[in-house]
């Protein structure tokens, strides 16, 4: 489903983010991407979303080379991938409901579908009673749940999360991770970049470990090791 083919990302001679990375991820997998800060996890995810271009190699999503797409088709690709960021990145002048609905509106879905699906997803992440709040009226954990709701509202095949628990307390972290597990059970592939040992150990799913722009370990059912 996802295939990184000998991908390198070189900013300058002294700053090499990725070096000859090859990685294949199948449908319905739950992959944890671990490693220290600067190991290349975020770069790998940015390449998948075509936020950045690789210096060498290519990235395939559902057999399409994502970097061969013209900019106007990128939005079609991104609607198939839900994204969750460490710093939430919600639209600050939209309410919780509107933030989630925005992803559906952008995808051109019918108003009727939006009115049905948004409450359903808000219920799934447990935020039904906060749907008319603005992001800055929510706690970090709640904001991240909104971001997850937004990421899954279009029923994407893949959800990519870059350090989603980095700014959360342990209780919120557990809640957020359990939402990811729930989504994965419903059939969505998940890539979770993190350096939180407890999270990775509690999942006991596939773990890909990165260091200095390379993949140094790939365990089918692993634990966090450095």
């Amino acid at each position: 489903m996802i295939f990184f083919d000998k991908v390198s990302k070189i900013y300058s001679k002294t700053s090499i983010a990725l070096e000859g990375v090859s990685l294949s991820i199948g449908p319905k997998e739950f992959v944890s991407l671990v490693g220290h800060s600067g190991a290349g996890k975020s770069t790998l995810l940015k390449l998948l979303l075509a936020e950045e271009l690789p210096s060498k190699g290519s990235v395939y999503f559902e057999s399409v080379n994502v970097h061969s797409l013209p900019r106007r088709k990128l939005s079609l690709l991104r609607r198939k991938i839900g994204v969750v960021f460490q710093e939430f990145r919600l639209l600050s002048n939209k309410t919780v409901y509107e933030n989630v609905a925005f992803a559906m509106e952008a995808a051109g879905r019918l108003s009727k579908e939006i009115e049905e699906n948004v409450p359903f997803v808000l219920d799934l992440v447990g935020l039904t009673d906060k749907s008319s709040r603005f992001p800055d009226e929510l706690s970090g954990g709640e904001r991240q749940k909104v971001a997850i709701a937004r990421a899954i509202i279009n029923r994407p095949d893949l959800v990519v999360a870059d350090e989603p628990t980095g700014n959360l307390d342990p209780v919120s972290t557990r809640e957020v991770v359990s939402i990811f597990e729930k989504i994965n059970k419903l059939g969505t592939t998940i890539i979770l970049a993190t350096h939180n040992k407890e999270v990775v150990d509690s999942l006991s799913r596939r773990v890909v470990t990165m260091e200095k722009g390379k993949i140094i370990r790939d365990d089918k059912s692993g634990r966090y090791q450095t």
Partner: protein
Amino acid sequence: MIFTKIKRVTKAGFVNFWRNGWVSLAAILVVVITLFAIGSLIFSKAVLESALNHIEDKVDISVYFKSGAEEKDVLAMKEVVAKLSEVKSVEYVSADKALADFKERHKDNATLLQSIEELDKNPLGAALNIKAKEISQYGSVAKFLDGKSDSSGDSIIDKVNYFQNKKIIDRLSNILDSAKKLGLIVSLVLALVSILVTFNTIRLAIYSSRDEIEVMRLVGASNRFASGPFIVEGAMYGFFSALIAMIIFYPIIVWVDPKIASVFSGVSLFRYYIDNFGQIFAILLGVGVFICSVSSLIAVRRYLKI
């Protein structure tokens, strides 16, 4: 489908405009100043033009005929002059009327009136007062008249006062030309400066939303869907600014109107404002909406490159 998108983009624009109240207000204030400057240019041009017309209208040349000239020759001359393409109007002043005017003008000067009475014959000749369409055309009208003679070959024209007034007429003509040119240059510079200021203000307003634009792109919004609300917001800045500028003009014009009228009699700015309200509002609205939405478009494009 396209209709739904337009509806969503418009609605988002309205909502953003309202929720970013302070930013909207600040942007509108700057745009009001821009439109106010442009509106002032329109009004000053109107005042200047009508004042200049007023001055131009006071300029004429007079052709004085010899006192013995036959009335029919003078009238024939009037016909000829009236047909010239440069001439706007010709007024015939008979010898008797000239005398009456002279007496009226000098009614306080007893000695002068007495000496006139003592003459048994009217010493004044008939005259033609000629107005040209443009000040610069007086020269050619005067040249045409100079040396005209009656059927018998003698010149019936005593003098044409253009040649005495030439210097003043030329100078006035130069001043009017420079005033028009200067007005145009000042207008263009002011308009340019205010457009740049508006552009920068809107760029700053959108700069604060750059992260949101990126997020919209990353959750799958097309470029148009992400940038549309900003353009709607820009158009709303333009609309409200034009409305506010037009309202601000009202008290200012009421206040300034008598002052202008006292300097240039016969010029009414208030009348101009009322008569051309719709047209001026349309100009400000068009300029405002255009500048603001184009500024938004240019500003937002920078952040869509993702």
